[in-house]
């Protein structure tokens, strides 16, 4: 495993935090720019923008499907293995929708169809934003209470924030939309991210011994933790993507990206800040 060869003690705190901070800044610019131009930090999926999603198993090619539904606001056609197709439509009025449903029933009677109205999507958006906000605040409060020390707690909160921001920016770049599923994954990321951060902080601040050894030990444990989680999520991603289970596939892709981002933020950003803090004698 490549990560294990990264010598966490080779770099100065300044070097460690540079890359994550630059990436966080870039992510901030990207998300800020998208918010200014579209009103939302990320491209919304059907849950939030309204529209219709269809999962069907068919031997029809993408072109055939595009031709079949050319009269409707077709957004995309995704393909899995075994003929699985995931077809998305933008919002449309009720008459149009009824005719679409009739067409789907005729062509693909065994399809899963889900439809969300545009205004209801807006309500869901607002609710998801509230969830994200409350989660983040709740997490920060728990961390501050647990450590009762602003610098280490701040480092954990900052690194969790960076996890979410950078992951969101990557989602926007590679085109994973913000949906209920991906919002849940971002929330889950808060939990995962804090796991390794707390391990790191506790090891460095509460254990006796040389800083270098503690850091290396924490890193060894942290890497194995994140790789096992990655393994579980990767399995979930492979199977659900192949089997066209859209919501699990979405959750898994965001968690996969997020866990890699978290590796960087924990072992460069958070570790860098803590190292500087300890070197300056913050620890008694």
């Amino acid at each position, binding site marked *: 495993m490549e990560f294990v060869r990264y010598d966490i003690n080779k770099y100065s705190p300044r070097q460690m935090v540079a890359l994550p901070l630059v990436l966080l800044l870039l992510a901030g610019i990207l998300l800020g720019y998208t918010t200014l131009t579209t009103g939302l930090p990320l491209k919304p999926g059907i849950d939030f923008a309204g529209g219709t999603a269809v999962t069907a*198993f068919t031997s029809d090619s993408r072109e055939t499907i595009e031709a079949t539904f050319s009269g409707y606001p077709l957004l995309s056609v995704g393909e899995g293995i075994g003929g699985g197709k995931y077809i998305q439509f933008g919002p449309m009025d009720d008459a149009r929708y009824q005719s679409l449903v009739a067409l789907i029933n005729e062509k693909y009677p*065994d*399809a*899963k*169809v*889900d*439809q*969300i*109205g545009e*205004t*209801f999507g807006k309500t*869901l958006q*607002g*609710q998801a934003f*509230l*969830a994200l906000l*409350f*989660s983040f605040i*709740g*997490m920060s*409060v*728990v*961390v501050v209470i*647990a450590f009762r020390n602003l610098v280490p707690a701040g480092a954990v909160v900052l690194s969790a924030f960076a996890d979410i921001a950078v992951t969101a920016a990557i989602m926007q770049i590679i085109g994973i939309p913000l949906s*209920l*599923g991906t*919002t*849940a994954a971002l*929330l*889950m990321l*808060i*939990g*995962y991210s*804090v*796991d390794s951060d*707390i*391990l790191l902080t*506790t090891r460095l601040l*509460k*254990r006796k011994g040389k800083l270098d050894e503690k850091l290396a*030990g924490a890193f060894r*444990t942290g890497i*194995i*933790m*994140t*790789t*096992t*989680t990655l*393994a*579980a999520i990767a*399995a*979930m991603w492979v*199977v*659900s993507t*192949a*089997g066209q*289970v859209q*919501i*699990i596939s979405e*959750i898994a892709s965001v968690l996969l990206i997020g866990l890699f981002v978290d590796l960087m933020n924990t072992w460069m950003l958070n570790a860098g800040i803590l190292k500087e803090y300890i070197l300056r004698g913050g620890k008694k």
Partner: protein
Amino acid sequence: MKSETIVHLIKDWRVALLIVLVAGSLIGIYLTPPNPANGLEGNLQFGLDLQGGSWLQMEFQSVVVAYSTDKPVGDLIENLQKSLEADVIQIDENHLEIRKGVSRADLEPLFAASDAKIVGYQEGVSSFTADEVKRILNDKVNALGMQDARINLLTPTGSEYPQYVRIELAGVDMATAQEIVGKQGMFEIRIQTTGNETEHVLYGDQITSVGVPQRSPETQAWGVGFTLSDAGAQAFRDAALRYGAVDNPNAHNLVMLLDNKTVYSAPLSGDLAAGLRSAPVRSLSASTGTGDAGLEDAMTLEIHLRAGALPVKVNVVGSGSVPAALGEHFKTTVAIAGLLALLTVGVVVYYRYREPSIVIPMLAINLSEIIILLGIARFIQQLDLASIAGLIAVIGTGIDQLVIITDEVLHEGRVPSPNLYMKRYGRAFGIIAIAAATVIIAMLPLALMDLSTLRGFAIITILGTMIGILVTRPAYGKVIMEILSK
């Protein structure tokens, strides 16, 4: 492992608790009641997306307004009803339910015209109305003998009033689901002629509005008011005159039927008979008697008068359906995903520790955690795709925390003395307790939010984390200690 070690382990309360819970969960899933026909699934409940069926989410076209006024509220209600052509109902001292999707800006001038002020405005209905909607939908579904229907009222976070109703029907396609929800009964009013003979007066389409149960100030009797169209009122008067109900009300009961079953029968009141003599009457009231029984009858009658129509207009804002075959396919897929996740986790952990006596307990603990989780979920949470994602996420965090314990305890590769062991275990437990607390806090908003279809995901994650911290981690700590001290 020697047999005495095993006995020693089982006597430990942490391990014993784990075993009891695993056994209890298996019994809950497979034996209470026994369900061999379902095979491995036992008594687990599955959501629509794994089972097949349809869902409809509907938004109430109604708002709740908090108001203040110095004038009698009756005038305000009457003015509003007239100008909005909608039912307006007083919920409590200072809240009105306006059964129409109308914006605050449109309401302001109407309130001002009646010398009243809007203090608060929220979309939705009172809980009373919401329950009535739920009751009506339940009746419809039950009347069709549907086994597996779920009807939930949804209140957005930040609002006090239910704004949506979501209905889930297992094993039903979309068209049927829409028909069930939209279907109305046939309501008819007939009049008694001679003996048991009755004649048709009017059908339910002549009823333009139905009120809520109210108590008459004079007689203390409960009743339900309803309004007829002009044509309906004319037909009503003609029938009352023709069959002599005006002259001799007690011999000519008015009979109300829903789908040809009598739901109400009573004579005209003296006042009404006198009124009908001179002109058609549009506003009528059916009295149901005094006391709690009267109120209950009035509530039922109200539903009947509406003939299965909901008291509030609803708009479908979301809908979906999953054919059973596809649900079956999803079920297989997620089962493979779960097993594969467990397996890859096993491989990674083995790669790291290369020690079966650590890896096997780790995986066994992880598996038991999932069994307990499913055992509890069987009673409180149907498994949908999102909650299965939560389940797999729990495998991930679970193994994370076992790694923390193992590494903490095995510090510097030496097996510690029991004292040192407990100290290190305590430290490890401290780390995972904080981590667990943050996961629970982070997921809590999602678990509490009515609207999110991801409730299952959050609930399973929180439950899994709690089982981990309360049951399986302590047991693992004990097991690994026994093994390492050999």
